[in-house]
């Protein structure tokens, strides 16, 4: 067990492009750190550099108290779970799990003991003598996990380990994974493109975009205090709504309503040429819902209602100029669920499950003005009382 430190680490390819740019990240001993971002953002490259599968062009990588840049993967005392699991097809489950110990010349009794212990933890006792081809997807995933834990490594590296499972099994395995990591308290770096996995699994989450770290923090910090439009749009499902806005003294004009602005924020908003306001879907309510007294109120024609049982999601348009920001356009290109169709400003609202709204109703809605998040459209950065959480902006 050890902490992992990336100190200004850069990956540059022979053609000069940079897969990871000047990444600095400190992963504490025992911490569960998630690297998340759309495909091609450099998260897997960063993980592979930690593993030693990818050469580090610049910067230092520390595992424990040593710089490991020049160590081969096998010498770094880390275990990796691959997206495809990478189980050796010609070996039994037992041999797969014991392969690293065998290479390390661990005595036979010790090897058997550790493999069987790992098998017990993962519920694989009955499958030890099977070949991977005869296992289900979930079992293969657990063998891959088992291969990592028998080694008692200093750190686990996981590259989208759940993405080959079907939706139901993924949720179940996610919970098992969280429990397992808590029990072993081994430093873990986990790569995913799925923001739900990031939010539910991570002690901290590092959001990456185009090879650069956007923000690192706890899931709640990312959710409530996103550093920029990219993080704001990437984290959360349904995604945050972005609307054009204009600061005007003690209010901000939104397309559908004026909202009061906190005194501390006013001065910061004044200098901003183009302002974007972000509103989480759950910060809308129907007028008259408990605890919404004094919230700004407006009317909107509902385009579509989705009743999920636990909540009701309503969609409507609010007109106004379309918001334009480079980060939002990038997000809509690269991340599912953030597609934009131009024209009207579409809004998603998450209402109470017992809402009686129907399509084409004119709904009376309110918005929690204290939860609005402000962004500078040109830089993409959030404008907030506390800007310390912004690690990098576009």
């Amino acid at each position: 067990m050890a902490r992992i430190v990336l100190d200004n680490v850069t990956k540059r390819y022979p053609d000069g492009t940079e897969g990871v740019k000047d990444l600095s990240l400190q992963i504490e001993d025992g911490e569960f750190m998630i690297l998340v971002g759309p495909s091609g953002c450099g998260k897997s490259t960063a993980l592979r550099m930690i593993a030693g599968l990818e050469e580090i062009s610049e910067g230092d990588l520390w595992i424990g108290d040593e710089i490991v840049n020049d160590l081969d993967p096998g010498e770094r005392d880390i275990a990796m779970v691959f997206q495809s699991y990478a189980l050796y097809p010609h070996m039994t489950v037992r041999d797969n799990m014991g392969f690293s110990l065998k290479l390390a010349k661990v005595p036979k009794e010790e090897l058997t003991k550790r493999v069987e212990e790992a098998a017990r933890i993962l519920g694989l006792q009955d499958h030890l003598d099977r070949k991977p081809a005869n296992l289900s997807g979930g079992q293969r995933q657990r063998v891959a996990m088992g291969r990592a834990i028998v080694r008692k490594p200093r750190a686990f590296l996981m590259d989208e380990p759940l993405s080959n499972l079907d939706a139901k099994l993924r949720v179940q395995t996610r919970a098992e994974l969280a429990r397992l990591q808590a029990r072993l308290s081994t430093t873990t770096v986990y790569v995913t493109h799925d923001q739900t996995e990031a939010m539910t699994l991570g002690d901290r989450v590092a959001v990456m975009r185009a090879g650069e770290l956007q923000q690192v923090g706890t899931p709640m910090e990312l959710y409530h205090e996103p550093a920029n439009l990219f993080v704001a749009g990437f984290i959360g499902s349904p995604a945050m709504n972005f609307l054009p806005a204009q600061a005007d003294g003690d209010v901000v004009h939104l397309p559908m309503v004026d909202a009061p602005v906190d005194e501390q924020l006013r001065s910061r908003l004044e200098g901003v040429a183009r302002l974007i306001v972000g509103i989480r879907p759950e910060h809308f309510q129907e007028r008259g819902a408990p605890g919404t007294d004094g919230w700004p109120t407006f009317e909107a024609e509902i385009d579509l209602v989705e009743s999920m049982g636990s909540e009701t999601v309503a969609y409507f348009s609010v007109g106004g100029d379309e918001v334009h920001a480079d980060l939002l356009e990038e997000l809509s290109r690269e991340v599912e669920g953030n597609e934009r169709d131009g024209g009207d400003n579409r809004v998603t609202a998450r209402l109470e499950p017992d809402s009686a709204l129907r399509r084409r109703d004119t709904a009376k809605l309110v918005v929690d003005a204290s939860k609005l998040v402000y962004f500078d459209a040109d830089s993409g950065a959030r404008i907030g009382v506390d800007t310390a959480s912004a690690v990098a902006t576009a």
Partner: protein
Amino acid sequence: MSAASTPRSTSGTITQAGAPSKVRARSRRRTMPAPVQRGLLWLSVAAIVVFCLFPIYWIVNTSLKSGAQLSSGALWPDDPTLRNYRSVLQDGDFLLALRNSAIVATTTTVLSILVGSFAAYALARLRFPRKTLLLGIVLSISTFPVIAIAAPLFKLWSDLGIYDARFGLGLIIPNLVFSLPLTIFILTSFFREIPRELEEAALVDGATRMQTFTKVVFPLAAPGLVTAALLVFFFAWNEFLFAITLTSTPEARTVPAAIAFFTGSVKFEAPIGTISAASVIVMVPLVVLVLVFQKRIVAGLTAGAVKG
């Protein structure tokens, strides 16, 4: 992806009758009814079998004839005899040729696989500059006309004193020129199909590059190695031009050369029965190999032929 790994798609597309509904009725009117189609198909299958196997039958038939029957042109031997086989197996020169062929083909195969698998692994996996160019050069070697290499080697081998070397040893290195590109080509496409992540997993598990090769890549590439070995063995067993250019005596000659010189020097009419028997003898091991390993051989022949 190469055909080697392509699972068979579902069954016949051409003979199947249409799906239910109107489409079926319409296509029936336009095309032949299903039983006729099936009949035509079986007829063409029969034609293929006859076309492919009849000449083989003919040479076996000839080998069992003797004396006047040989010049009868009859489709079956009236009085089958093994006399031709007996006489060819008593022929010292033919036995020497069998020995030389076995030595040459086996050595060529072993060396090709040994040397070629290293090169193929590097080409399939390792990152280094000008890889495509190198693979292109290797491929283009295999299109060289053999005579363009055999002619200068004829002079060179004479000067070096390995012309007509015993056991056909002078043939092994020339054979490698063509068997190596074949090996490298087949194995490269097999190595590529082994997921890179498996090797990475082994590296992370603490294996050295060599251990990765011996413990993970090699066992998984075994089918590819068998395929390449078979094709190289066939090539070396069949090789003719080097064999007749670089050897001149029975001590050095391989089977194809020996068979050719049965006919080349002596007048053809005389030993046709014996030659046929010799032909059958050298054909049998290969036909057996084909029947046993047909899947592997087809995989090798078509490796790289159907890239998406």
